[in-house]
């Protein structure tokens, strides 16, 4: 029997112009955006009630610059956005901090786990609109309702993720801390937090998205101001370009928070992991230098 000929894989040919453009991060994003806007424009041809991209952009321009929407209605962007942002940050702060603490408790103590784990799981399954309704029932049309909606909706996501992270901490490292009698605060700061950082970020991402959903709903139902309120205002006025315009605002906001803030924080927190390749070269250089 003769051995079957073995195919030697050829070196991959470098991708051509279009492929290279699509493979570059900017190229991929720009292409995706263009495709999306094209599809949207097509949709307006089929469904004429859907406002097209140009119409919506015109609306947003007027809304943001505070110009006239025709008649006496003027653009109001920053007042609503600022109010929502304040409530959102406050709610997220409460939800995140309490989630972090409870998560660490559940992760590190079996008693706390027995007591709290199921409660957190139940909270996790509650949709944000339930909180929006409940807080409005409790507090009426006040600033507390949206803030608490964000806090309640985001809290369980942080808690569950952090608890999982704490349970995943290598026992060897904890033993090391014990053997060297490292203090509690130091242990928390230099071992627990960095070890759980990945889980904290995952929790925070969910918290932001869920919390943002929650605040829009809450303001939609009970707001007198804010992004959700303004969105409803245009919806009730049958001005769909206004509605779609504001929907785009909150999508863009979330994407920006993710890209600009979270990704940077994450890159900073994981410097130790991502630096490897560069620094092996540095080590070699240093050894040559020695």
């Amino acid at each position: 029997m003769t051995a079957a000929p073995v195919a030697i894989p050829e070196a991959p040919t470098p991708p051509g112009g279009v492929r290279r453009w699509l493979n570059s991060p900017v190229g991929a994003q720009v292409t995706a955006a263009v495709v999306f806007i094209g599809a949207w424009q097509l949709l307006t041809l089929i469904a004429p009630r859907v406002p097209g991209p140009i119409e919506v952009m015109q609306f947003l321009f007027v809304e943001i610059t505070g110009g006239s929407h025709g008649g006496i209605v003027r653009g109001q962007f920053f007042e609503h956005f600022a109010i929502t942002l304040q409530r959102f940050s406050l709610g997220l702060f409460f939800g995140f901090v309490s989630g972090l603490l409870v998560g660490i408790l559940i992760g590190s103590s079996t008693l706390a786990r027995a007591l709290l784990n199921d409660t957190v799981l139940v909270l996790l399954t509650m949709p944000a609109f339930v909180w929006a309704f409940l807080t409005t029932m409790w507090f009426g049309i006040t600033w507390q309702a949206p803030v608490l909606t964000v806090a309640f909706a985001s809290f369980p996501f942080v808690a569950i993720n952090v608890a999982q992270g704490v349970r995943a901490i290598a026992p060897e490292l904890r033993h090391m801390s014990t053997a060297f009698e490292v203090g509690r605060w130091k242990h928390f700061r230099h071992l627990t937090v960095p070890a759980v950082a990945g889980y904290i970020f995952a929790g925070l991402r969910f918290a932001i998205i869920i919390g943002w959903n929650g605040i829009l709903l809450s303001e939609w139902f009970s707001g007198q101001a804010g992004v959700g309120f303004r969105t409803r205002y245009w919806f009730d006025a049958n001005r769909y370009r206004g509605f779609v315009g504001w929907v785009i605002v909150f999508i863009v906001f979330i994407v920006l928070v993710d890209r600009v803030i979270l990704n940077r924080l994450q890159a900073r927190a994981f410097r130790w992991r991502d630096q490897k390749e560069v620094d092996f070269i540095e080590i070699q250089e240093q050894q040559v230098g020695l």
Partner: protein
Amino acid sequence: MARVAIDRLSKTFPPPTKGGDPVVAIGDISLDVEGNVFVSIVGPSGCGKSTLLNILSGVETPTRGSASVTEGDRPAHLGYVFQDARLLPWRTVMDNMMYVRDDGDAGAAKAALYLDMVGLSHTHDMFPGQLSGGMQQRVGIARAFSVEPDLLLMDEPFSHLDAITARSLRDHLQELWSATRKTVLFVTHDVVEAVQLSDRIIVLAPGGRIFDDITIDLPPRSPRQKPLVSRRGWPLRASGRRGPPPPSRGTRRR
């Protein structure tokens, strides 16, 4: 001068499977170590060597009996070198050294000194992942020495390394030890290593009992004066003049 006093110590772990027998990691050990001696603990895998060190360092609690490590009349201050380096991967080498100390800048100078002693002064700002296994282990050794412990516990610190790296670290260890003369409890599988480094060797048997307790009475060692081991396993001087020690050479306790 640290004193390790172990009195009728035993440690039993719950059965690994339901309905199985509990695991006896240490069965009734009594042991006294005092002064600036280097004591090796050898024995087959699973005979409770790591468990013993973990009890001494407060990571595990005894099931019965007691173990105490004192320095004068206060609890002794410990250093621990593990089988793996056990560094915080998200902290730089220097920050890892500082993690186990409570002092500020004065401590940094000390940490730098010990890193220098293991030949790693160029790695202060590197992360453990950027070092080789042997370099990481050296950081672990420097860390344990840098807290200037009364008692140094070492659990097979070289077993994960290749023979050449292990030998060079052993030399580092001997130098550090000659310079500092700590009380050391050193766990190893390697009898040659134990003989080369120790003043006394405690042999554990399966079931966590003391099988043998040998005092080695060789002149002060240095890296260049390594005892040889004869075919029968007894230590010889480098000159080869010393024969197998008569039974009375070792103080035996059973």
